[in-house]
């Protein structure tokens, strides 16, 4: 296996709130290889966004990346490099695009100005140079009449165009890693497809890795090679995309797949996963999914499941790996009273 571009190991990010310590990301490890696209899925509040912000070290008080976490990138540990170096990495080697391009753009400057700013910060480009490169980036992201569009303000552009502008800003310095946090969630379906297509195209052109965060498994199926499923601050399953869809192991992943509408299948109602994610200030003991799980038994309440090896490159945080026969007898999720982890 080649050396990974990014290796996150034992990442813990906690928020010290008045309601207690919220362990939003709790011992997460994964790697991303050069030129690879990794998908990260999970419902709201599972720690996807906090993971991505931790990589860029953009966690603000009262949040904190705990000691012992390591984020190796380009031979350095991003948890410990000094702030000046981190600023050089942000936007230059690792870039990020956000869910809602309207709120991520500054309403008082033209979009060209904002794309040019990236070149001014990282390449110390002159005003004129930076502007020329901004127009080039707009052209690259497939915006018609880029020179005119560059002089417009965010509110004058459509949602899809704004996201193209964000992509232009992110790719200005040809980063090695692009983190895309739900890049298409705020867009309508036809535009979603275009933006994903554009990202794939530019990824091939620039030669970068991508961490695609989404809650849409449909997006994942088409665009990524490997999927990380997160639940309650942990990685619960990781597999090559084909394996995940064919032989999902973790009951949470199974639930997500069943909740997804599929072509050619008539269903009156989509399946839902009952219940909600527990609060990050008090994760339950044992398995964090047990209250919502149709297979849970006593062991799930007592023993926190480790990541079991299912097949090559396929891991799952579920005791079913030890006792597969229990999968044959699902029941309504039962609440096992055991208190919370300390």
């Amino acid at each position: 296996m080649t050396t990974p571009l990014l290796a996150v190991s034992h990442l813990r990010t906690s928020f010290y709130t008045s309601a207690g310590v919220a362990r939003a990301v709790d011992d997460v490890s994964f790697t991303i290889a050069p030129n690879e696209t990794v998908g990260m899925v999970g419902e709201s509040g599972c720690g996807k966004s906090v993971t991505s912000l931790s990589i860029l070290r953009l966690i603000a008080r009262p949040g904190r990346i705990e000691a012992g976490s390591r984020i190796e990138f380009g031979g350095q540990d991003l948890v410990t490099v000094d702030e000046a170096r981190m600023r050089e990495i942000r936007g230059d080697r690792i870039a990020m695009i956000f869910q809602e391009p309207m709120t991520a753009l500054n309403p008082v400057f033209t979009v060209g100005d904002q794309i040019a700013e990236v070149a001014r910060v990282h390449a110390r480009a002159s005003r004129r140079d930076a502007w020329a490169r901004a127009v080039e980036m707009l052209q690259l992201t497939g915006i018609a009449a880029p020179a005119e569009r560059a002089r417009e303000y965010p509110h004058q552009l459509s949602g899809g165009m704004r996201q193209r502008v964000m992509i232009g800003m992110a790719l200005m310095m040809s980063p090695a890693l692009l983190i895309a946090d739900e890049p298409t969630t705020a867009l309508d379906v036809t535009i979603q497809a275009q933006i994903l297509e554009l990202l794939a195209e530019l990824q091939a052109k620039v030669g970068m890795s991508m961490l695609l965060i989404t809650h849409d498994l449909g997006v994942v199926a088409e665009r990524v090679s490997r999927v990380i499923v997160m639940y309650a601050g942990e990685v619960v399953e990781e597999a090559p995309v084909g394996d995940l869809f064919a032989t999902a192991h973790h009951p949470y992943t199974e639930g997500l797949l069943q909740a997804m509408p599929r072509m050619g299948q008539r269903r009156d109602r989509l399946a839902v996963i009952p219940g909600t994610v527990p609060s990050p200030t008090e994760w339950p003991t044992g398995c964090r999914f047990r209250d919502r799980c149709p297979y849970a038994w006593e062991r799930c309440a007592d023993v926190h499941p480790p990541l079991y090896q299912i097949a090559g490159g396929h891991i799952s945080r579920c005791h079913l790996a030890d006792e597969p026969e229990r999968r044959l007898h699902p029941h309504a999720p039962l609440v096992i009273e055991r208190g919370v982890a300390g």
Partner: protein
Amino acid sequence: MTGSSPLRIALWTIVAVLAGLTAMRPAPPSAGGAISPWRATLRYVRQDRASRIAIAFLTALALTTLLSAWLAPFPPNDLLEPELMRGRAPSWLHLFGTDRSSRDVLSRMLFGGRISLGIALVAILLAATVGTCWGAVAGYYGGVVDSVMMRLVDTALAIPRVLLLLAVLALWGTLSIPELVILLGVTGWFDVSRLVRAEVLSAREREMVLAARALGAGDARILWRHILPNAISPAIVAAALGIGNVLILEAGLSFLGMGVQPPDPSWGTMIGEGSSQLSALWWVSVFPGLAIVLTALSFNLLGDGLRDALDPRQLPAR
């Protein structure tokens, strides 16, 4: 340089026509293309009739005071024939009359306006700048910095401004005009800093700040480019509304003999000069008083218009 000359009449006409046109004409319809938020704001303000009239009045005032050397029919501090001309009621030669030292009231008002408005504008600019910087730093860094900075502001706000000014003036005696400006400026920024801080607190949580940080921008760049432009509007409105206040404050201090010193005219000193003979020579005090009222009113109308344009939350239905 006395009486009416063709040049003077021509200049007065030009000023009047300019002001009239400003007042009558609403903003032209959008020409399409890129509209910056600042231009959009100005255009919106000019759609509002009250703001337009205020702008027209202030434009005329700015022009007449700036051109007072050419527009004033008489030199402001010269005594014109003390025996014959003192205390004359308004007439064609002396539109606003003469005071008891036989000086022309209109001419003194034009020169006085330059001093009064100059003091008010520079003082408010100083106050808005200091207040914006203070509030921005407090709001951006938060925590202990914020607490300490804002408790200082709260303390300062607890002291009535007029009392503070009188105390300072009592200690130092009379002040030169630059000193007066500085004094009015440094006692006027507390409100602005609170407004800006509140706005910065909310602006720094916006996703665009996170996005800018994710692209490698440092603190200074983020504060200057991404937070301040989006947090400055309450400071602008407060400044516009504050000018009227400073104008009245300066007039009050000058009236009490603690502001601008004679023989230089300011509107406040002129009211003071006329106050002893208000029943006999009413025009000496009433015209400068009217000027203060109308100017303060105009700045308030303009401030209201700016607030409507900049803060959609307070907007009545368009």
